[in-house]
């Protein structure tokens, strides 16, 4: 732990749970009640409102204020002494020994998550006023956004696994609704279904994991689970392999929601939704739920190092895999989507190596700058009249200066250029990985950093610099976006600049470590990780230099290729380069054929299998049923044929029957 030092507070950690005071209870409840009320009112009244956002947006601003107040109280005011508060709303499922309460839980991790979620959520709401201004169905949009905020807040506030699962599904629903917001587009209708279904695949694991937790530990409440676990492990009630199993199952859920390989396929398609949705749900908040889940379950994962290695491997593989696709995509939102995948991979890598704090740190900063980038891209798309293909953009920096500058800041941040936010968090992820003995993670991570810088500046170059490829009809109408859109961009840009420094300094003893130490202390204890002094002029410094260097290399390379600050871009060079490695280019361009593979496996082959089942049902099972009926009738017709209408035949029947009976009786009766 890079030089971090925190006082081993005996009260720190999960044990220090107190019942929420009435004020906190009210505020926590309001956090959930307000958005759901906003949702309901907007659904009921929205169509009749001249300004459909009039309920939804103020609601979320209030929610943001409450969340910020609570979080600041907890993190800076240290109101709960690093511990947690819990409050019971009511008993949700009282099924005998299986009793699940609607409990809310608030500790420092929750506080950090709340800050990220509500801040970006609030900004996106405001931004949407402008972005959706001309959409006839915008009341639905704001209603869905409120529903999403409710679900996401429930997700971070939930005090037990089942409630998290419930929220997990609800964010999935919101995501489904918002991806399919433009339902008349067939692609949107397909994308939201795909998103929901792929998520459900992961949810199987999550659900089974929850069941496993209940059957092994006997409760689903976070605090109780974490409390009971050590004793039960030590006492042999629970075998270690069970923990590995539980953790892997939970991780399945996380993989689905956070779109980790191979369940990553839904996220790029989810870009069919309106851009604010992509920013809020598919970049800054919902997709982080998987990271949050693993972080929240750190005491469990800490007991299952085998599972953690898999987490790290999946994470870092997704990081490089997604980055490789982001290289060649033409759709501006898809580049960002793959970038999101890649960054989420970083977070999982961090979780996997045991750098819990680093993962959350990156989650927070990534939320800010990726939210910024998406909103910026939305501004661009808006500016060029709903065009998403970067080949039809270029040289927009003069026409959309605010968008340009804010996105440039975002790109620098994600590339990891000091002193922007991404630098601090990414450096911490990579540094921790190296120092905790996962040099392979670090090595791949460094490569990914290089790639990240490259594709981000490719995006910037193709969009804002070089020659304009904008449709000539549209060109004269390209304009900067309204203030409701630019102001959130500016705020996020400012945050991208300062958040990293605020949270990440001083190096080795950063604010965020202080905040999260109580949360992750038990996990670290279990894993036996101990803080080492930070060596700015030793290993830590060297690692910083390496990552900054690779980021710069990537940035400069893109810079040169995509014509920064030049009139003419060098697309010829790019073409020549790609022509030299056609296989790689095509592979990357086609996302390594994963959509095709899925189509083959699940649509074609799966469809055939389902057809076969249906055939079996109709022809074999129902065929057997009808067959019995037909057979019976046929038998009846056959039997009836003996009814010939001729008296002699009938008499023969009687005589035959008589002889048969007589013979039987004589045989039986005289034996």
């Amino acid at each position, binding site marked *: 732990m890079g030089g971090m030092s925190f006082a081993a507070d005996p009260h720190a950690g999960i044990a220090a749970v107190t019942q929420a005071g009435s004020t906190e209870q009210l505020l926590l409840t309001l956090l959930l009640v307000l958005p759901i009320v906003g949702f309901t009112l907007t659904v009921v009244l929205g169509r009749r409102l001249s300004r459909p956002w009039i309920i939804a947006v103020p609601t979320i601003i209030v929610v943001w204020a409450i969340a910020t107040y609570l979080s600041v109280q907890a993190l800076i005011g240290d109101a709960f002494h690093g511990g947690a508060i819990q409050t019971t709303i009511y008993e949700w499922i009282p099924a005998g020994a299986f009793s699940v309460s609607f409990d809310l839980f608030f500790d420092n991790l929750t506080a950090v998550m709340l800050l990220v979620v509500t801040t970006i959520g609030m900004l996106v709401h405001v931004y949407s006023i402008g972005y959706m201004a001309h959409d006839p169905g915008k009341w639905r949009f704001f209603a869905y956004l409120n529903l999403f905020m409710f679900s996401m807040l429930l997700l971070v506030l939930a005090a037990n696994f089942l409630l998290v699962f419930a929220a997990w599904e609800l964010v999935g629903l919101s995501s489904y609704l918002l991806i399919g917001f433009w339902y008349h587009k067939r692609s949107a209708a397909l994308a939201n*279904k795909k998103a929901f279904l792929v998520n459900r695949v992961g949810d199987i694991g999550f659900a089974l994991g929850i069941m496993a937790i209940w*059957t092994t530990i006997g409760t689903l409440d976070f605090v109780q689970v974490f409390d009971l676990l050590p004793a039960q492990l030590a006492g042999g009630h629970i075998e270690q392999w069970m923990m590995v199993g539980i953790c892997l199952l939970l991780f399945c859920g996380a993989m689905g929601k956070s779109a980790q390989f191979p369940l990553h396929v839904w996220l790029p398609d989810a870009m069919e939704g309106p851009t604010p949705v992509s920013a809020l749900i598919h970049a800054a908040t919902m997709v982080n739920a998987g990271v949050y889940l693993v972080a929240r379950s750190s005491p469990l994962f800490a007991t299952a190092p085998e599972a953690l290695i898999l987490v790290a491997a999946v994470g870092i593989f997704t990081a490089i895999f997604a980055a490789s696709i982001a290289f060649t995509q033409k759709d501006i939102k898809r580049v960002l989507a793959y970038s999101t995948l890649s960054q989420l991979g970083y977070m999982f890598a961090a979780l996997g190596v045991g750098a819990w704090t680093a993962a959350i740190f990156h989650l927070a900063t990534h939320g800010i700058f990726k939210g910024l980038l998406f909103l910026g891209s939305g501004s661009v798309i808006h500016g060029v009249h709903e065009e998403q293909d970067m080949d039809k953009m270029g040289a927009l920096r003069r026409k959309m200066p605010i968008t340009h500058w804010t996105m440039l800041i975002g790109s620098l941040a994600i590339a990891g250029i000091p002193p922007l936010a991404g630098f601090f968090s990414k450096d911490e992820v990579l540094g921790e990985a190296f120092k905790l003995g996962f040099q392979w993670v670090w090595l791949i991570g460094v490569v990914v950093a290089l790639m990240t810088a490259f594709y981000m500046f490719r995006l910037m170059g193709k969009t804002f610099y070089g020659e304009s490829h904008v449709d000539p009809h549209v060109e004269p109408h390209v304009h900067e976006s309204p203030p409701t859109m630019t102001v959130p961009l500016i705020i996020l840009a400012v945050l991208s600049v300062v958040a990293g420094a605020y949270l990440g300094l001083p190096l080795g003893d950063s604010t965020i470590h202080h905040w999260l130490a109580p949360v992750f202390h038990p996990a670290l204890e279990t894993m036996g990780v101990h803080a080492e002094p930070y060596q700015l002029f030793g290993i830590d410094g060297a690692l910083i230099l390496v990552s900054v260097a690779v980021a710069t290399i990537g940035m400069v390379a893109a810079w040169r290729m995509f014509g920064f600050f030049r009139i003419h871009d060098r697309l010829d060079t790019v073409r020549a380069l790609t022509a030299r490695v056609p296989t790689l280019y095509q592979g990357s361009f086609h996302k390594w054929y994963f959509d095709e593979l899925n189509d083959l496996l699940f649509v074609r082959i799966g469809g055939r299998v389902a057809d076969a089942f249906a055939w079996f049902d109709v022809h074999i099972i129902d065929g057997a049923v009808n067959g019995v009926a037909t057979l019976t009738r046929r038998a009846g017709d056959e039997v009836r044929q003996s009814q010939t209408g001729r008296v002699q035949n009938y008499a023969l029947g009687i005589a035959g029957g008589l002889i048969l009976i007589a013979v039987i009786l004589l045989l039986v009766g005289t034996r």
Partner: protein
Amino acid sequence: MIDVSGLPILSLIIFAPLVGAIALAFVPGDNVRLVKQVALATTLVTLVLSLLAAVGFGAAAEYVLPGSEGSSGFRYVETVPWIPFFGILYRVGMDGISLLLVVLTTTLTTISVVYSFGPIKTRVKEYMISFLVLELGMIGVFLALDLFLFYIFWEIVLVPMYLIIGIWGGANRIYATIKFVLYTLVGSLLMLVAILATAFTFQAANGGDWTGAFDLLTLRAAGGFDPTLQLFCFIAFFLAFAIKVPMWPFHTWLPDAHVEAPTAGSVILAGVLLKLGGYGFIRFALPLYPQAAHDLAGIIVVLSLIAIIYGAIVAIVQPDLKKLIAYSSVSHMGFVTLGIFVFQEQALQGAVLQMINHGIITGALFLCVGVIYERTHDRTLARMGGLSKPTPVFAGVFGFFVFASLGLPGLAGFVGEFLVFVGTFAVSPVAAAIAAFVMVFAGVYLLWMFQRIAFGPVSDFLKGLGHHLTDMDRTEVLTLAPLFALTIIFGLYPAAILDLIQQPVTDLLVALGSAPATGLVP
């Protein structure tokens, strides 16, 4: 609060529809308005009576069988000797499970009757009489505590449903209705043999005295039938109930019946009739033949798992809306039987919950299909598309129930399914893991259906309907609103159900010899 303890409230609930049906018989058939009013009034009275029973349920005294220790768990018990020759009683009683199912029945029947005002144009009187008799039968099944009485109600249900599908159904209705009746009869007639055999065994052991031989409470208290008898009788009961549920591979009557039945018929079929099977298992088959139930549980669990997965997979490729939902019922009802036969507290509670919730949600889905059908006279998915635009309210409501059916937390479908999962996992993680795959398959068929109907551009077929394609009218909203509300209420506050069924479930598990499983933490 009205005190119902002095009234023969259960008999009132059972026979109120009969009174209505008889009254209807004297209403001239061409006075459709009066016919509808009488029918609606009858169902409303029955609904109110059942709600009164529900309100007074907590305060009502539990019946204690003379000569036995402890409560029987049933309230409002009424006992009248019926056929003394065989010791057959008219004995009805109510526990939490039957209370829920009765209220579900009265609610859905009322809704169905209201819904039918529009679509049913021919022979309205006969239709309403059939519905009322159907209601009588269904309520009777849920309340009967005498095996013979139970069987009689069980068979009574058959006739009106036969007529409803056969007279007011679709093109291929006769095939469907005869299949429905014959299939059900095969099972139920064998069950009759088992009932009689059980009673006789009791009588013989009791020195030739028929007293109490058909009485569930007496038989349950006596217990301990010979294993061979248990096995055969259980198999007979199993057949009857498995066909009704319907369990794989006895399910093929269901898609046909659903496709051909009129909307309200489908609602009742899916909402209540399928529950008769699950209820039969819980109320009769398990307490009477616990040994056989244990012996055969493994097979039944496997069949349930097959039903869950298989039903969902087959639903994926159904071109007809009603068929799709019918197969989804096969899958959903698989959870009921799975939950029952793992003999675990949570699973059993989940199974009961699932029965109620499936009744509400699938009933609502069929009503939604009816809304489409009334406007398009078609149910082919391939012809639908983009209904969100011309009929937004409908699309919203339909989507709501689609997600409820999908098991979205917070809505009714989730809790039951999850409890079954949890309970199953505690007994057999492998079974739970297999069943869990339905989470994806259910998503595939439900979302596919929803996408085909609500999303995309408006299909040419629908465009051709022009102004006939109106959004839901007031009656339709009125019928779906209670189900909408119940879906949310039972999703957010399942305790409303769970508290009621805790006692019966515990009793059943004790009778089965499976002590309620407790987590390690109290």
